[in-house]
């Protein structure tokens, strides 16, 4: 499989990274190189093999359903590029 510049543009859109046509043209062969290399996994017989989801066997723990954090609004907002009236502020979503 190889990716076309159109597909690269689509992936960039999914990833929310603005890219110029030049960047897309440059990236397409790089990605194809890497994808072509990882595709050697197709040689491996994985019939009946379960995908690994937890590298060390662990049971997920449950904790009591209680509030154990919060009331730190100003600390949460302290790093925001823009905050107004105790909220994160973003460009207008609806005209």
């Amino acid at each position, binding site marked *: *499989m190889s990716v076309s510049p159109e597909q690269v543009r689509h992936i960039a*859109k999914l*990833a929310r990274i*603005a890219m110029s046509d030049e960047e897309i043209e440059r990236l397409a062969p790089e990605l194809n190189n890497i*994808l072509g*290399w990882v595709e050697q996994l197709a040689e491996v017989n*994985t019939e009946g093999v379960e*995908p690994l989801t937890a590298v060390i066997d662990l049971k*997920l723990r449950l904790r009591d359903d209680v509030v154990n954090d919060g009331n730190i609004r100003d600390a*949460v907002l302290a790093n925001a590029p823009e905050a107004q009236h105790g909220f994160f502020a973003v460009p207008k979503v609806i005209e």
Partner: protein
Amino acid sequence: MTDLTSFTIAELRDGFRSGEFSAREIADAYNAAVAAAKSLNAFTVETPDDAVAAAEAADDARANGDLPPLAGIPLGIKDLFATRGVDTTAGSNILKGFRPPYESSVTANLRKAGAGMLGKLNMDEFAMGSSNETSAYGPVISPWRRKGSNVGLTPGGSSGGSAAAVAALIAPGATGTDTGGSIRQPAAFAGICGIKPTYGRCSRWGIVAFASSLDQAGSMARTVRDCAILLEAMAGFDPKDSTSLDLPVPQWEANLSSDLKGKRVGIPKEYRIDGVPGEINALWDQGIEWLKDAGATPVEISLRHTKYALPTYYIIAPAEASSNLARYDGVRYGLREEGVKTLDDMYSATRAEGFGAEVKRRIMIGTYVLSAGFYDAYFTKAQKVRTLIKQDFARAFEQCDVILTPTAPSAAFGIGETTDPLAMYLNDVFAVPASLAGLPAMSVPGGLDGQGLPLGLHLIGNELDEQMVLNAGLAIEERAGFTARPEKWW
């Protein structure tokens, strides 16, 4: 007095406790060394006041007689660890100016143990790189140089600032993180020790996430004992990390022993690969002899899926990264690109501006392998191969107690010398399999190559058996007699 920066952590601890010198003297010596080493570009932020405050607390505590284990020891902290009130940027422009209102669990543990902080250490952006060249702060320059040359070399990566600082004697020890070799490869390049414990030993809470099923913090220092001391203070159960191991932290330092009688050392035949310099294979053979001398018996083992480990890693790690890095959207912290009209454009413009080329490349690969129609062919397939790699190790550890390999397929290379992404990825060919299997692994210096650059030996242990890794590392350290230090040019 001898320069305190040449002391190991164990020597500093013991000398401070016996009253030979004060913690303040240690902090002052290191703060001065850090300030004089700016040309290495190892630190992103220097925090001399933090080191001094911890030292003063240690000196007071000594007067009262109740000392925590790392009292008087100042450390370098990789910029991936959130440190309260101190810039934490993961080497990226997108986190520029981010000052966490919280402290990572690992650094909180170190502070509780009495350690001070010399500063934040430079690294590859979001820990994606093997040379430190992807950092938004520019590359760290290794203190090492090839014989008769002044070409700038990389300290490896991604924990390159950590490795360079420890090797240049501007920090006695440092934290690192290892997703696919990011502690071990730079440790090998810089002629120091570095250990990544079993996945789950160190809490990931407050460590900027790269690939969460692989990320693991560890210690970097000049000796095996120092690595054990630091790791003991860093590790421990943390309810805030759902993959944290709910187990007591072993007394790794107290149980150090280089007597390997009755132990079997696995030598994986698949790690003899083409293109590796003869010097590295010769050092590997020497390592086998050293471990035999310590009482161990070498056994040949097979890790059949070794050649598929890197391609597996380069599906899984970018996939997880593309998800983890989705949070950088210009809303809650870090960079925001202004001058665009819509929210969606603000996201895309911010991420275009804030991420470097390698991070974008990996987000793109990760997004692709997770996208509709490709998920099974790439991501699920890679997870299945990961199962096979883990099974290879499980079978191998029925035949042996520890595995010995080289750490990296080359010595340190020059800055700018490796431009092809795939060639860069190959640096971690020996390190990545243990990461995929979640196993403890360590690099210990073995010797110098013909150009005068350090080479490392790599030990991989069974799940939870850091002790075996450390003990075999100690056996090598005692026999290698590696005392070489870079000649000071900075």
